[in-house]
């Protein structure tokens, strides 16, 4: 059936190929990807992307329409929690009909586990264009450093 489904010692590679083929068949060439809905919606607002560099961990939370003052970021025991509520839109006019209501509304809470070398005391956050960017610097003492050896040859 699928040329990639040969007996192979790497089961996970096969599964991934099968999944990709399924994605291609379902998504099609012209249909846009539904990736933004693929994750369970109630538990996954805001969507998170996490990246790491030598100096810090950066968390991007895609949270449009939330006032920065309404977002609560707390760090406790190595867990960083992003919580808040996206309130219902207030209408001036009563709408006659609602054709679609796909956007997330209500309270949300997401938790990220911080690595051991995270410096919880220096966490910074800023919000722009609907994206909350959280910067978690790594502790200076945890960074790789070269130790000079003293003594005579």
């Amino acid at each position, binding site marked *: 059936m699928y040329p990639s489904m040969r007996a192979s010692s790497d089961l996970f590679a096969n599964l991934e190929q099968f999944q990709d083929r399924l994605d291609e068949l379902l998504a099609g060439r012209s249909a846009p990807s539904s990736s933004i809905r693929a994750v369970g919606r109630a538990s996954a607002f805001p969507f998170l*992307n996490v990246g790491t560099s030598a100096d810090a961990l950066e968390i991007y939370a895609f949270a449009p329409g939330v006032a920065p003052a309404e977002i609560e970021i707390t760090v406790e025991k190595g867990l960083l929690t992003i919580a808040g509520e996206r309130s219902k839109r207030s209408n001036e*006019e009563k*709408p006659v009909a*609602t054709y679609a209501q796909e956007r997330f509304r209500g309270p949300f809470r997401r938790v990220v586990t911080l690595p051991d070398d995270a410096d919880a005391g220096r966490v910074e956050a800023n919000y722009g264009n*609907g994206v909350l960017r959280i910067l978690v610097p790594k502790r200076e003492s945890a960074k790789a450093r070269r130790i000079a050896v003293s003594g005579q040859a």
Partner: protein
Amino acid sequence: MSQSIEQTSHRPAAALLPPVDIVEDSSGITVFADLPGVEPKDLSVDVDGRTLTIEAPLTLGEAKELMSVYAEVRSNCYRRSFELSSELDTMNIVADWKEGVLTLRIPRAEHAKPRKVEVRTG
């Protein structure tokens, strides 16, 4: 981070579908679209005949050396199209942008608005 996204997928990343709320009142239709991570200057709202297309690239402004560890948003572009009925006035669409939310106000064409017809007596 966008570089590591391109490396991990073997085909071009498909566009994200922004979630929308669409409501209608007596004077027209309002579309609210969630587009976090977009710079307003990159946002494109096009009308071609009766098709309205919202398209925008994502700009997170992350450093080049940032390595992606976990990504729930794996595309670098939003795109969504809508077919507008003929009673809508596509020449007078008003678009607003705030905190990652695009609000489109599409008024009903004059000829399509409900109106009373006066009856002449005599």
